[in-house]
């Protein structure tokens, strides 16, 4: 399998606090990679470094390299805006644009990235909402406000919005942590359905979720990557004592 992302010597800071320490990790193409660890371990910061969204926060710094198909997204010639078009992101709390309708939410990324053709936009919106398994629920109210949807629907809308700009990688930062179990199950199903087409990196604090949805798992602790392996190996045969303690519920 090809390596979609190669992360080398990645460090990140908030002001003087180092949030990530020398992370080295490869992400397989068309696989689901889960990032687990206790709160404050740097897992969210890690995925936020992969699409250069970490740097928009005040006082945030990054160094090291992240190679996307062999090209460093942190090189001086790389435009972060173009990086983010190729590496999409779904956030922890559903964040649809509150002043836009459902349709406009999904269309926003396409339109604001320069596409003008009405038919094309409508097609892509419909396709994306269908892929996010939301179509049947919203097809009659596409022009209603997105904030009227339930939390789980909003999150799937956010996934549709991300899919609509046709990224290669989708980062998901605890996408189900704010949702009820049924919505969570739908999101997990959705991940299974779309993983053929995308490379997915998902942060989760829920180890069962990581075990269910991912092919690879990385365990983070205090800003360091403790262990990275196939998910089956991590959960059945962890190499590191700390990983074992965490997955067996001894801390975290």
């Amino acid at each position, binding site marked *: 399998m090809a390596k979609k992302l190669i992360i080398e010597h990645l460090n990140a800071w908030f002001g003087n606090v180092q949030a990530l320490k020398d992370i080295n990790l490869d992400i397989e193409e068309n696989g689901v990679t889960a990032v687990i660890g206790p709160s404050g371990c740097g897992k969210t910061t890690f995925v936020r470094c992969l699409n250069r969204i970490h740097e928009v926060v005040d006082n945030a710094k990054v160094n090291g390299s992240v190679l996307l198909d062999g090209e460093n997204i942190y090189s001086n010639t790389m435009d972060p805006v173009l*990086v*983010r078009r190729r590496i999409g992101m779904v*956030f922890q709390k559903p964040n*649809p*644009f*509150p002043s836009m309708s459902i349709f406009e939410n999904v269309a*926003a990324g396409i339109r604001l990235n320069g596409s003008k053709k009405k038919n094309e936009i409508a097609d892509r919106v419909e396709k994306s909402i269908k892929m996010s398994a939301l179509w049947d629920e919203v097809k009659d109210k596409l022009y209603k406000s997105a*904030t009227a949807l339930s939390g789980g629907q909003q999150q799937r809308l956010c996934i549709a919005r991300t899919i609509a700009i046709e*990224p290669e990688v989708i980062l998901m930062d605890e996408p189900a942590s704010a949702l009820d179990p049924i919505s969570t199950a739908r999101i997990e199903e959705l991940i299974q359905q779309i993983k053929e087409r995308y490379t997915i990196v998902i942060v989760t604090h829920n180890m069962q979720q990581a075990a269910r949805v991912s092919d690879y798992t990385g365990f983070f602790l205090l800003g360091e990557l403790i262990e990275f392996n196939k998910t089956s190996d991590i959960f059945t045969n962890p190499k590191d004592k700390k990983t074992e303690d965490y997955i067996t519920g001894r801390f975290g």
Partner: protein
Amino acid sequence: MNSFSYLKRRILNRFMLFLSYGSAAFGVVILFLILSYIIIKGASSINLDFFIKLPKPTGETGGGIANAIVGSFIVVGIASLIAIPVGVMSGIYLAEFGKNKFASLIRYFADVMNGIPSIVTGIVAYVFVVVPMHGFSALAGGIALSIMMIPIITRTSEELIKMVPDTIREAGLALGIPQWKVILFIVLRTASTGIVTGIMLAVARVGGETAPLLFTAFNNSFMSFRLDQPISTMTVLIYNYASSPYPDWNAIAWGSAFVLIIIVLVVNILSKMFTNTKYSL
């Protein structure tokens, strides 16, 4: 003894709370007193002519304030044309790029500007515009009002743009949308209901101003659409006609006050309903 002091405390309590209710009643009563006088005295001078005719010379009855209504809209229009872009853009700067010393200075200056007495604003616009143009003008009036509007719109826009959560900005950026488009088409749009309301309130407020217009827009007995000529406004007209010894003119002042207060109150109540029902993040 003990029960006596308890009684005293109870009586004091009753008395003070009674005063508090009384104060609230006073505020409400004063508002009704003012409004009812304006409505009763004003409504009687209102008819169709009032809106479409020009003022009559002294001694003749009838006539209207068409020129002053048009003039007020022109002057407030000029002020809005200047103050809305300056105010909203400054608000964007303060909210999106405003974490530095320079922005704090701008904020401070906007507050200073907001506190300038309106009559002083009039003098300033006189010196800025009337003196170089060698005459009173609608433009000078508009600029005077814009000096009052700019700080209001700036600080309102800043507050409302800041209320848009960062997660919305990040959602936009994560879609590969450039920052400038995120600000203009996502953040500003999210804040737009509130900003529009703020602008409406600012317009209503300066629309009721008189002092800044006395020696800028001045007045004009005729219909004028020219920006470089003096122009009549409802507020200055009220002032001039109220101070005149002729009852007919006083009546026109009441009529104009009626029109003015209706506009001001409607805008205020509308904006209140607007914010209560629609504005939700």
